[in-house]
């Protein structure tokens, strides 16, 4: 038992050595076309936010980003990708919601958990900030009203580094 715990502690302690780049996987867009996730990197930063129909804070976060998007885009050029983790049960409803809400995002549908597993998302909501080269530079789990500001601050930091 102690060995197992020590091993886990060691592995967790080693996380400061590790980094993450956008994985090379393909998933479906809102029209049902297969999209390579790395092809979404088009020389500008990106916010990627995972959501599902049954995740209330996820939808709160996406609504909050969408509300603020007009103001944010006056200060920085970036894109937003919303990844639904809904499976076959709720995928149709998720597409329905994404269409009606007027979200100005690229909407992807990860019903096979391909991208979710590749990006090690165990909890939704989870949002990532990706730089113009496809490197994940920031991520947070969970959502509390106001925490979307952190994402935009990271986008502004990327702009300053340019």
């Amino acid at each position, binding site marked *: *038992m102690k060995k*197992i*715990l020590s091993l*886990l*502690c060691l*592995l*967790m302690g*080693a*996380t*400061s*050595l*590790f*980094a*993450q*780049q956008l*994985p*090379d*996987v393909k998933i479906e867009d809102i*029209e*049902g*076309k*297969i999209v390579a996730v790395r092809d979404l990197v088009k020389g500008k930063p990106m916010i990627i936010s995972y959501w599902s*129909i*049954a*995740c209330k804070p996820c939808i709160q976060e996406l609504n909050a980003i*969408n*509300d603020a*998007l*007009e103001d944010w885009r006056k200060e920085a050029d970036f894109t937003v990708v919303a990844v639904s983790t809904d*499976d*076959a*049960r709720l995928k*149709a*409803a998720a*597409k*329905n*919601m994404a*269409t*009606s*809400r*007027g979200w100005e995002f690229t909407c992807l549908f990860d019903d096979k*958990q*391909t991208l979710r597993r590749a*990006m*090690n998302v*165990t*909890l939704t909501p*989870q949002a990532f900030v990706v730089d113009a080269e496809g490197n*994940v*530079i*920031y*991520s*947070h*789990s*969970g959502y*509390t*009203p*106001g*925490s979307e*500001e952190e994402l935009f601050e990271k986008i502004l930091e990327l702009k300053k580094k340019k």
Partner: protein
Amino acid sequence: MKFLATILLAIAAIAPAMAQKSIGNGQVSGSFESTSIGYLDDKKLGDAPEDHFGSNNYLKVDYSNGRFSAGIQANAFLPVLQGYEDLADGYKFYLASKYIQWADKNYEILVGDIFDQYGNGLIYRSFEDRQLGFNNSIEGVRAAYNFGRFVQLKGMYGRPRLYTEYASSWVRGADLIVSLADICDIQENMTLSLEGSYVNRFQKLTLGDDRDKLIFETAGLDNPNLNMYSGRLNFGWNGLSLRGEYVHKGKDLNLDAVDGMASNGSAIYAELGYSHGGFSAVATYRQLKNMTTRASLYDDGTGNAINYLPALTRQYTYMLANLNPYQVYALGEMGGQADICYSLRSKESRYRYWNFHANFSTFYNSFSKRVMWRDINFDVERQWSKKLKTIFLFSRQEWSKSLGYQDLYGSNIFVGDVTYKFDRKKSLRVELQYLLADRHEGEYDYEGDWVAGLAEFSLAPHWSFFVQDMYNIDKTKTHYYSGGFSYTYNRTRVQLSYGRNRAGYICSGGVCRFSPAYTGVNLVLTSSF
């Protein structure tokens, strides 16, 4: 002591600075998830389990370098949480998945544990759901090839995982997608594809065993091979979408079959959607006949499946609306749902809008033609300003606990949900819910009326505190209360709560696991890197 050890583990996970460095040209990423419960005695519920403690832990580590990637996942149950199936001895540490993969531009090959799905998953889906203790990945090999945008072909072969072991069967399958829209170079905003899948399950025989005789002679199953075929159509054009799938399944044994005899199965799935501006609507229909497909004919349990048959009903986020979820009757059901959304946005302010949503779902028993489930519901969300948002939800649910053979229970559920932002960081969300049960000759349906409430105060971006209670007014007069807080730092989140939890089914998609009632302290840690 074990609880302390888990807390130490949690601290170890929070500690790392999030500095990010690549290792050569490769990189390592991963995640850690831990759920631990200290079970307490509760006069209302009875004694806690003898061990008074459970802890489920998952560590996943991936390495990628260009087109190459590899990874492992280790699970540690120290011991397993109450209600998880097939872990009688409680303690288990094992390698839950491993893989190596090469993904080139047009092809990929994976050796290890496969997570994938063909079509809607009606004949094959392998996935992991930790809340349910579900992992039916296929240990074997998968290859996929794309002929440009025109044709996608993939195949796999391996043995399915059954909880912490492997099923006594081999599964192989292939999936083909032909994009007619791309082949015929039809206009850009149109998608049209024809698709098909084949899955075979070979049940290993334990020769001489009485169970072989029971399955392959008494039940009329004449072949250890089960073959399933699926044909699909996908069409989309200017906001209009049409998807359909038909499944034929060979002779298989279903434990729920009234006569205990093996028989063929089939499924039909149809989906029609339309969207324009802020309006969108989708209607789905599904029919199942003998579609439960176990990974092993010699074993039971919700984790013993190679296909996916989700309940096509609305998934709620409110406690009382989720009290009695619909459970799929794969032996013979037909039904569907309609879902309509409309968003009305102010031209002056992005912070003022209405979102209207209505949903209807119903399912019938194919044999008796009686209703097993019906739910008509709507919700109205109003963002009044930057500070204030309200939601009102109503749901009328009718369900049968006897597959429609006896009377339906009915309930009307009302929910009010208010979020108020005091400033950029502080916010308060309050939910009030009431479940009004139908009365027949003065008697309440099922457990009678319920009331519930929740208050959640958040200090963005790190802290959130909540208290909630769910109370049965009429029959059990029991409070199911809880309170706690969560702390989030970048990709690490810790939640500590205390409360009493009601017994019931935890459902994800079409899979449900019975969770016993308990009172306890709950620590959840998630972290990724």
